[in-house]
């Protein structure tokens, strides 16, 4: 299963590096959202850092939805998903490969958008960065675990652009709440120790929905 998952991941990364369609669109959207938030609120330098957790996670959510939809459109084009399913591929491997690809794509987006957020909202990243990376990766994995599962559901229907957010966003509330709280604690200088409950929530969400994705993906992608 690991070999097949890595083959799916390598294929997705090769297509992405060749076309740059996914990364370009989510980075443009991410930069735009950060700019709009910072201009719309026009916070004073002392207020601005308090806005940062909400800006980071709202930006992440919108760009993430776009990224997940694109990752399955690649499989729908030319009916590639059917070609994968008529074969020995374990659907769990397809899920894991897609999940890893989405995590990497979203991490790349975060790596570009975070410095911009810090610049515009006067956030001091230097001391908080290690803790922030842990929080963002945990949130990234939880988001991608659930979104990859629902992305496979949504890609089969005509109204997928509407269906994915409707299905996904209510279930993502624990990730978003945990992510915002943990980010706020880390940026306030409390470190990960100041956000143990939120980190625990993110970790539990990651484990539950990654396991659910591995177990349920076959039911989702097959008729």
């Amino acid at each position, binding site marked *: 299963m690991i070999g097949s998952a890595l083959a799916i991941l390598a294929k997705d990364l090769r297509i992405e590096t060749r076309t740059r369609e996914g990364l370009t669109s989510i980075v443009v959207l991410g930069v735009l959202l950060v700019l709009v938030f910072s201009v719309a609120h026009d916070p004073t330098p002392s207020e601005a850092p308090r806005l940062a957790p909400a800006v980071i996670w709202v930006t992440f959510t919108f760009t993430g939805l776009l990224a997940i939809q694109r990752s399955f459109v690649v499989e729908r084009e*030319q009916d590639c998903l*059917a070609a994968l399913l*008529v*074969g020995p591929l374990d659907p769990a491997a397809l899920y894991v490969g897609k999940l890893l690809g989405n995590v990497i794509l979203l991490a790349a987006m975060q790596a570009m958008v975070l410095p911009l957020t810090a610049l515009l909202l006067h956030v001091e990243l230097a001391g908080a960065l290690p803790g922030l990376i842990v929080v963002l990766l945990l949130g990234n994995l939880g988001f991608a675990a659930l979104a990859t599962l629902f992305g496979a559901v949504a890609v089969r229907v005509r109204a997928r652009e509407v269906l994915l957010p409707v299905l996904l966003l209510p279930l993502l509330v624990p990730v978003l709440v945990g992510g915002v709280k943990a980010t706020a604690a880390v940026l306030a200088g409390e470190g990960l120790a100041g956000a143990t409950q939120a980190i625990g929530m993110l970790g539990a969400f990651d484990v539950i929905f990654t396991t659910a994705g591995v177990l349920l993906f076959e039911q989702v992608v097959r008729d």
Partner: protein
Amino acid sequence: MAAPVVVARGLRREYAGVPVLVAVDLEVAAGDCVVLLGSNGAGKTTLLRVLATLLRPSGGALQLFGHDAARRPAAVRAQLGWVGHETGCYPDLTGRENLRFHARLHAVDDARIAECLAWSGLDGAADRPLRTYSRGMAQRLALARALLPRPGLLLLDEPFTGLDADASARLVGLLATVRAEGTAIVMSTHDPARVDELSPRTATLARGRLREGRA
């Protein structure tokens, strides 16, 4: 004597309560070539997708390679080759990259990739992205992809759509070599004259039932 490749008895398939396949019986032996005929909406694609295990039948029994397809899907999928309306290949990858990706999933070695590229006449274009291929070349790549693992059953849904006479003739020639190696072929088409060279069995789907011969 080897078990038939396909044994379908009373296969049914419904979509939201609407029957598409009512009671389909079909038996296909190794090396057989069966052409499915029928008007649009007769259920040819549905039957092929059921045989490919992409759709679950609503009723009836399906055995592939002697295995119950519902109970041992993994055992039968490893022996299936599928070419649908689309190529099943990624337009932004080259022909070789597409085959290499599927070869990795099927644990097929690089020598087989080279063999399939040469056999399909694509070795000269193997390092070009699929999106630069003509329809005929793309269809040959799809066939090469499906044949990588040397399947015992090749399922083709309207493989001649969009092909000119030369490309069709070339495809028929390739299918003849596949059949000669013992692979069973089941395909749908609106133009059975194109496959006369294969001397296939024909079967017609009408009102969800399959009858041997042309309507």
